[in-house]
């Protein structure tokens, strides 16, 4: 049964999409039926994915739930499996999907069938990315997600949707094609396309550098890292709310996951050599995009730039190569997935009522929408990294890890934290929620509806759970991260890494 679980997770959303095709379009309730079908499909998928949470053996370092069918042996196989990191990312995907569908319940009135199909297909492709153990299968899922997202932005997006969708597609595609060539090289050189085998294959130092750069071209765009982040604000601003949630919540995580799955373990020497490049780019991203976020007028654009800054944290943590930094990065990805998704939903709530995202058009919402103000505050605080919320755990671990790699890195990252508090609290939250209620068209706005509470409640619970008691989540990633560090040291003659490893258990205890 467990062998087929991942395949089932891939198929169920597609079955839902096929069912949507059979619903006749011309009846009174057809749009409602389509919404419910999509919702039940995604809820069922989430329930299925919970079996991963309970069935996964946390002490086992191998890939689990493995299913392999040979197609062209040594070149392209159907090969699925998960480790703790992928389990959490799959759960993040399946958790966000029903929320996206509920969020589009009344916002999407046009072409409901196509919209829901695009989301369900997207879900399959995203789950596929996180559980592929074959290089080209990974690529197919990784790239495949572009088309549904292209359509989601282009068909249901805002005024400049065509520009944004093309920019999104072409940026990502260009990076990915270089990655495809690198994948071909590694498969030809190693003679296998199985990721677990490739993880132990030693490439020559020169080859590693080129391969690392080719993979970097793809993951840096997807992440997105400065200076190739410019597609993200455009895509976020134009995408419908649920599209933004998926984009920020899951698609950006594919870049980080790619680093963990390919760049770090397969090219350890190159990763050590080029870590400095990543640190510099990440620190620029953290500081520069935070400053840019400070002067935004558009709420979605502000959150988009904050995403780039938060992803900068993730890349810093990944390239510290130590337990805290890596665990922190992964935790930060999960936390950001939920928090930024929730923040986009918060923007969606007021956008649905007033149809504008300009910060200046709001102000004093706390007077008429106290519940909304509370919800919005929880997620703002989580984004800033207040202790007790999920944001804190990730940022703290990353900072600890970064300090070990170099105090200047931690310093740069910490400046980003301060600026983060600035744009989230001062620029966004204060101007939208606090102050006096002066504008007339705001006065009639209703507070959160039960449907919206239904969206936010599970997310609030999760943010607080991850913030107060992160152990269940960290337990999933502890063993995979240890394995990753061992794989990293295989090529590394780096003294510092060896030293760090000796003192790692003690520090880890301290970090908890």
């Amino acid at each position, binding site marked *: 049964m467990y062998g087929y679980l991942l395949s089932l997770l891939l198929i169920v959303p597609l079955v839902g999409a096929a069912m949507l095709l059979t619903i006749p379009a011309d009846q009174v309730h057809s749009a409602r039926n389509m919404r419910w079908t999509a919702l039940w499909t995604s809820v069922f998928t989430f329930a299925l994915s919970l079996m991963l949470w309970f069935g996964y053996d946390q002490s086992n370092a191998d890939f689990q739930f493995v299913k392999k069918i040979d197609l062209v042996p040594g070149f392209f196989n159907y090969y699925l499996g998960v480790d703790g990191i992928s389990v959490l990312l799959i759960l993040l995907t399946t958790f966000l999907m029903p929320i996206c569908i509920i969020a589009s319940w009344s916002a999407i009135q046009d072409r409901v069938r196509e919209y829901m199909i695009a989301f369900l297909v997207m879900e399959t492709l995203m789950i596929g990315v996180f559980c592929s153990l074959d290089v080209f299968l990974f690529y197919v899922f990784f790239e495949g997600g*572009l088309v549904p997202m292209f359509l989601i932005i*282009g068909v249901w997006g805002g005024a400049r949707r065509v520009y944004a969708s*093309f920019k999104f*597609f*072409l940026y990502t*595609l260009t990076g990915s094609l270089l990655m495809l060539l690198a994948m*071909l090289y590694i498969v030809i050189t190693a003679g296998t396309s199985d990721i677990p085998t490739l993880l132990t294959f030693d490439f020559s130092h020169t080859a590693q550098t080129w391969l690392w750069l080719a993979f970097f071209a793809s993951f840096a765009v997807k992440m997105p890292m400065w200076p190739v982040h410019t597609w993200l604000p455009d895509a976020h601003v134009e995408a419908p709310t649920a599209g933004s949630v998926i984009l920020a919540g899951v698609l950006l995580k594919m870049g980080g996951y790619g680093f963990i799955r390919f760049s770090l373990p397969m090219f350890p020497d190159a990763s050590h050599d080029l870590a400095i490049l990543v640190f510099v780019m990440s620190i620029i991203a953290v500081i520069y995009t935070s400053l840019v976020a400070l002067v935004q007028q558009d709420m979605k654009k502000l959150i988009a730039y904050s995403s780039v800054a938060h992803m900068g944290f993730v890349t810093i943590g990944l390239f510290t190569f130590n337990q805290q930094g890596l665990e922190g990065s992964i935790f930060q990805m999960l936390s950001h997935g939920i928090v930024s998704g929730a923040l986009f939903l918060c923007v969606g709530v007021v956008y649905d009522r007033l149809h504008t995202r300009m910060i200046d058009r709001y102000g004093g919402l706390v007077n008429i929408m106290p519940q909304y103000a509370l919800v919005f505050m929880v997620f703002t605080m989580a984004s800033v990294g207040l202790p007790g919320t999920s944001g804190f755990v990730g940022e703290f671990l990353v900072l600890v890890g970064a300090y070990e790699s170099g105090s200047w890195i931690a310093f740069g990252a910490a400046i980003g934290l301060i600026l983060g508090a600035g744009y989230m609290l001062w620029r966004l939250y204060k101007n939208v929620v606090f102050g006096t209620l002066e504008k007339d068209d705001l006065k009639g706005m209703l507070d959160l509806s039960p449907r919206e509470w239904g969206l936010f409640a599970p997310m609030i619970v999760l943010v607080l759970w991850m913030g107060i008691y992160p152990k269940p989540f960290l337990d999933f990633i502890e063993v995979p991260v240890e394995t990753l560090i061992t794989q990293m040291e295989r090529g590394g003659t780096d003294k510092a890494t060896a030293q760090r490893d000796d003192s790692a258990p003690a520090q880890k205890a301290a970090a908890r």
Partner: protein
Amino acid sequence: MIGPVENWTAAWPELLLAGGALLTIVLGVLGTGPKASFGRVTVFVGIVLLAALAALLFVVKGEASAFSDLFVVDAFTSFMKALVLIGSLAALIMMRPFLLSNGLERFEIPLLMLLATIGMCIMVSSGSLLTLYIGLELQSLSLYVLAALDRDSKLSTEAGLKYFVLGAVASGMLLFGSSLIYGFSGTTSFAVLAQELPGLLDGKLPGIGLVFGLVFVLAGLAFKVSAVPFHMWTPDVYEGAPTPVTAFFAGAPKIASMALFIRVIMDALPALEAQWTQVIYAIALLSMVLGSFAAIPQTSIKRLMAYSSIGHVGYALIGLAVGTSEAIAATTFYMAIYMITTIGAFACILAMNTESGSTDKIEDLAGLRKHQPWLALAFACFMLSLLGFPPFAGFFGKLFIFQAAIEANMYWLAVIGALSSAVAAYYYLRIIKIMYFDEADLTILGTKDLPSGLVMLAAALFASPAFVIVWPMLWSSAQAAAAAFS
């Protein structure tokens, strides 16, 4: 190998086609009116093509040569001929409704297609420079006439004339190159050339003369596959010729020319590999880049498809530049996918009928998803496959081509190819954007013709992600076909 009894079995498909062509003439002349004889001849030509396909699959077996090695048969020829016949058959099926509604129902059209198909089969099977030329000219002359078919249209006449003049120059170059090779080696047979060339290359004069001959032959072949810098005819001919004829041009003849290209360099001139690798490297690179950039500003979908075909030939030529058996398999595989996807795309273009006749303007596709959702979906499928997007069919073609390039350490070719396909992504996506994002101001009626609808459906299923079911099988038969060159 000259025996008292000729090995007729090897040439069964060609003999069937040739006999069928003679009968077709009689059948066409006997008709009572143009419309009736057109219908009858179309059906008959279809049957002849099917019979040839059946003969190819069930009668022709293994490796053989006939007529003093002028004509060779092996796994590669069978694979390519099957594609050629399928391509011709599909074009024949798709052209009917268009020709009927545009008053072009002349029985000569299927007849000329049949003659061109014979030429193509001979090209694929040629074992000597002479058969090569006969096949090529039979094909080319039929195609020139087909391009100029719409006599009252200026564009069509211009296309035919342009194609003829430029094609004649290319044939001249090919013939000149062949004569140089014959002059310096003393033979026209591919098999003998392959044996004798290594010895001849040591001498100074024969060596240079043979390289000159090679360059002229390559120029002529590059014209036929429409590779840069011999591509200039393609956009004009694609645009000017009646759409069903363009659909025919884009499919089978490309396959046959590519097969001929492969056969000449791999079978006859392996000794000159160092020379032809450089030439093909350059034309592959230029074709990919030009194909992706030049298609961007096009407003006619037919011109866009012409530039797209130039780009695709560039990708296919990468496999030839590498020149190993595995790389030839990649090219074969790529061409098979390209042909079926292109046929599908043209089936969609042929369905672009409005109330005021058929159109080839890209902007007329606006809002297609609204009034023709299935047509739009199929069209999107073909565009994504041509773009090489996973998991559509075209992706697997590009995957194996890039693999061949990387295996041969031709990294720049692979990198430029990858970046060109990112550029090309723009114009393929633009079509999807116009169909799905824009609002309609014109209603596309689509097609009511069941047979061409079925062709479109079959091609769409092939190009769609359902391809993952077929591709391991198709890839292994492409490998088996290319094993002829190991």
